[in-house]
């Protein structure tokens, strides 16, 4: 039990690391995910191909492998960044593939006629997507995006193996200090619960506010 009270600082640091990774990677994933979804429904064939390739490659690569590719690969091209930033890139790009597909399925729930009406009024692709299709798609993608971001929070644990301070990684130090492994992990689990339940709560509010009225 005293593993927590003795090591509040360590736990706090780890939790902060996980929260930072989750928040930054989520923002990156959301921006890239919406962009890629727009690419995948664009009237320009090369954009569609790019979006499809993005999703196919990132969604089908094990996340650990992606971390290796980013952390070991990018420096070879002269891109040397802090490990935390590498981790955000890997997590964000990986998750963006799932966000993209969630958003695209949401776009497909909007009747074709909505887009046709917008286009027949002279609205461009960007206007049609931004003002007509996405606002209506948004309502139905809130739950799947929530799930995806919760998965991201838990996936951030992999960053611990790549020299990034985060929650799961704290067990190594605590284990060496001789604390009970069970209680160490119980408090780590509680930390993850705090993060994931917060995400759930935020998305519940969003769903109440914006979800489809039935």
């Amino acid at each position: 039990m005293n593993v927590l009270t003795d090591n509040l600082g360590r736990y706090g640091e780890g939790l902060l690391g996980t929260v930072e990774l989750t928040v930054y990677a989520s923002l990156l994933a959301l921006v890239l995910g919406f962009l890629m979804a727009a690419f995948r429904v664009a009237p320009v064939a090369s954009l569609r191909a790019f979006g499809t390739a993005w999703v196919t490659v990132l969604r089908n690569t094990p996340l650990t492998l992606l971390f290796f590719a980013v952390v070991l690969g990018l420096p070879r091209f002269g891109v040397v960044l802090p490990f935390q930033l590498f981790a955000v890139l890997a997590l964000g790009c990986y998750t963006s593939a799932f966000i993209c597909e969630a958003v695209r399925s949401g776009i497909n729930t909007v009747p074709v006629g909505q887009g046709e009406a917008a286009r027949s009024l002279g609205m461009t692709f960007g206007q049609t997507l931004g003002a007509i299709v996405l606002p209506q798609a948004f309502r139905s993608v809130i739950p799947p995006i929530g799930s995806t971001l919760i998965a991201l929070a838990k996936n951030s644990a992999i960053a611990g193996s790549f020299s990034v301070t985060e929650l799961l990684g704290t067990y190594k130090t605590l284990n060496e200090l001789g604390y009970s492994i069970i209680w160490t992990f119980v408090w780590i689990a509680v930390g993850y619960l705090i993060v994931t339940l917060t995400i759930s709560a935020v998305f519940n509010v969003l769903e109440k506010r914006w979800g489809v009225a039935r």
Partner: protein
Amino acid sequence: MAVDPLIELRGVNKHYGDLHVLQDIDLAVGRGEVVVIIGPSGSGKSTLCRTVNRLEPVESGTILLDGQPLPEEGRALARLRADVGMVFQSFNLFAHKTVLANVSLAPVKVRRRPKEEADRRSRELLDRVGLLAHADKYPAQLSGGQQQRVAIARALAMEPKALLFDEPTSALDPEMINEVLEVMQQLARDGMTMVVVTHEMGFARSAANRVVFMADGRVVEDRTPEEFFTAPESDRAKDFLSKILKH
């Protein structure tokens, strides 16, 4: 044939897979003319209507709007579509916007009008179709006939050169058809150029300058309503009319 064509199709062809849905279509619609397209289902009349603003791309042939060929997908096409209003069978009002916002949206986004000016104009148009009292409701709160009249106001807000109607009354209850047809009659009297795909023979008789009868992807007859309804030339048209005018 129209002297000063606003809409002109020359040798237009289109397939859906094996189905040759438009076969060498030639059609000209003059300024201020009301052309009603009728025909059995599957004859290609809706597709024809939708090719005019390129919601359906065609495979061969040219489509001219005000003398200009339809451009490829992009900004030029968007500009051109802004000048051709379209009214759909399923209304397609923007479900997440109020009636007023539905009408004002395109003038603000596409024509770059100030919002207050667009809203004032929208209220005038809603008044004209008899729906000013419903301006702040959402489309789902209106009846089908009311929604379709909003859709007409929305198309008119862009001050289009021509209006395309793709079976505007086919999804309506019988008692709501008239309120929509009356608005369309008024537009026809005001000199709007209209292409109307419909099954409303009464409207075709009273409002159309010309009736185009389509069957199996071809224009079979293109005549005045009087001639067409009293003395159809083709067997296909005689057969069609005998079926629909029986009861």
